[in-house]
């Protein structure tokens, strides 16, 4: 009994260590070709310095951004400057994310702990991505001026989308990612249209830009970790392949100008390892909650809204709308 407890404590400590050291490149045993490939592409982005132009095609819409990424072994910093939409620059240093909006002089500072979780996820026993996706080699292709290896991740059921990923041959850096629907049609694509590996990016300069919030209104969105049970909710029948990875309570801002009304919203997050979805639950308000049903943003992300008793549920995720509907239907209020 004592030995069991000691073993449990050791493995818990190990897991805790994994989550607390996000930038440490872990030499995990990759037991399947899929897992070893996932580790390779994940680590590649942490070990190279590069600049380039990134393009996202979602539905019929195109967006692009200039990217600069630097790393020095201990930390990684990147800057994303979109060339479309609202002028802004998003900086990331490990899991600290700062977005600056120069026109409105707003700075949003977030600590995205989930960014560091990935290698640890592979270690946990119920995180088997291979249960949900077939891994397939697609062969070599040339893109953005580099030789790339293609990999197909075909969904094993209709609850999720498929992916095609091309990573640079030498470094493993992902150059192009496509999301495919059930009929094999590309519904979303994101790729480097041009890429300079080992570009001379000055990390110190990026960090300085990121922390220079003088003259900006700083906003720090806050979240409180909760359990769905404590919020009064449960999922009667889980959707196959998805597991919950977090539940938070966040204040609802009625508008940018008004202070938060004091009411809170629950965000319950699920993932199948590649796709994620969030169930947002808030009190029903007839003035703002008017349209039930599915909303197609044109790309891989779908939104489904529904009234459940005195509550309003909004499900958001990179999954088919039918999956979101299944989650919403399974959501039940504790008696």
């Amino acid at each position, binding site marked *: 009994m004592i030995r069991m407890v000691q073993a449990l404590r050791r493995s818990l400590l190990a897991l805790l260590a994994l989550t607390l050291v996000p930038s440490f490149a872990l030499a995990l045993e990759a037991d399947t070709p899929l897992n070893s490939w996932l580790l390779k592409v994940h680590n590649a982005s942490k070990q190279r310095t590069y600049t380039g132009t990134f393009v996202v095609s979602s539905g019929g819409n195109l967006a692009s951004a200039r990217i600069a990424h630097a790393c020095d072994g201990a930390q990684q910093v990147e800057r994303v400057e979109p060339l479309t939409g609202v002028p802004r620059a998003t900086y990331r240093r490990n899991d600290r994310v700062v977005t600056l909006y120069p026109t409105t002089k707003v700075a949003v500072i977030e600590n995205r702990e989930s*960014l560091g979780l990935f290698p640890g996820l592979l270690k946990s026993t119920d995180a088997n991505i291979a249960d949900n996706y077939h891994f397939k080699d697609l062969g070599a292709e040339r893109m953005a001026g580099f030789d790339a290896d293609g990999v197909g991740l075909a969904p094993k059921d209709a609850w999720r989308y498929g992916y095609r990923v091309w990573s640079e041959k030498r470094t493993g850096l992902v150059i192009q990612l496509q999301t495919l629907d059930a009929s094999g049609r590309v519904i979303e694509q994101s790729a480097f249209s041009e890429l300079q590996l080992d570009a001379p990016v000055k990390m110190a300069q990026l960090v300085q830009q990121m922390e220079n919030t003088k003259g900006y209104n700083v906003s720090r969105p806050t979240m409180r970790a909760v359990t769905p049970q404590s919020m009064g909710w449960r999922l009667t029948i889980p959707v196959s392949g998805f597991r919950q990875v977090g539940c938070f309570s966040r204040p609802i801002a009625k508008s940018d100008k008004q202070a938060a009304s004091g009411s809170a919203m629950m965000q319950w997050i699920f993932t199948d390892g590649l796709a994620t979805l969030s169930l947002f639950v808030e009190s029903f308000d007839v003035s703002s909650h008017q349209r039930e049903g599915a909303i197609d943003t044109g790309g891989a992300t779908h939104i489904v809204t529904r009234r459940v008793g005195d509550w309003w549920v909004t499900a958001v995720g990179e999954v088919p709308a039918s999956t979101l509907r*299944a989650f919403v239907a399974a959501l039940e209020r504790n008696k």
Partner: protein
Amino acid sequence: MTPTLPTPDDHVSALMDGELQGSAQQASVETLLKDARAQEAWHRYHLIGDILRSDELAAGARDLQFLTKLESRLSQETMAARVEMPERVAVLPPDGKHHTSANSDRFRWRMAAGGALTLALAVMAVFVLEPNMGRADIPMAVAPQIMPDTQTDVAAISVAPDGMIRDPRLDQLLSAHQQLGGHSALQMPSGFLRNATYDGKGR
């Protein structure tokens, strides 16, 4: 003598149908070149007429496509009008004779155009506003049949032509969802870069 016409629209449609002659025609053309509203009306009438006469856009499911296209064209048109107008003016018959124009039953065409627009708008409104209820829930044990989500095609109209969702509440939720997207194994670098690049929100 230069007659002064009460509204830009009236003289625009008169000009289009070749009903104006001589100095009246010239005055109308001059007004057209200066008045942005008149130019807008000019283009709108031509567009409606052309589309209604086109075989491609038969009534029915195509109407929604047409409306989206028309909407985006119109939203761009106010700025482009000044550049286009000289071409249109050059097409007028030079001899000033009263020609029977293609839409000689002008009034009837305008009524038909307005009626078709109203009908299509009403159809669209019904589909968008009707809640998605009564749809049988999928049994959990069985993966859903792969069928196109027809309801979502219609609901896509709520997304503006440039892809931005106009509902600020939904924008906030999208943002909150992406903030926690690190759980995807593909988050680095693609997922994070994608979310930072394609920000379908307006702040």
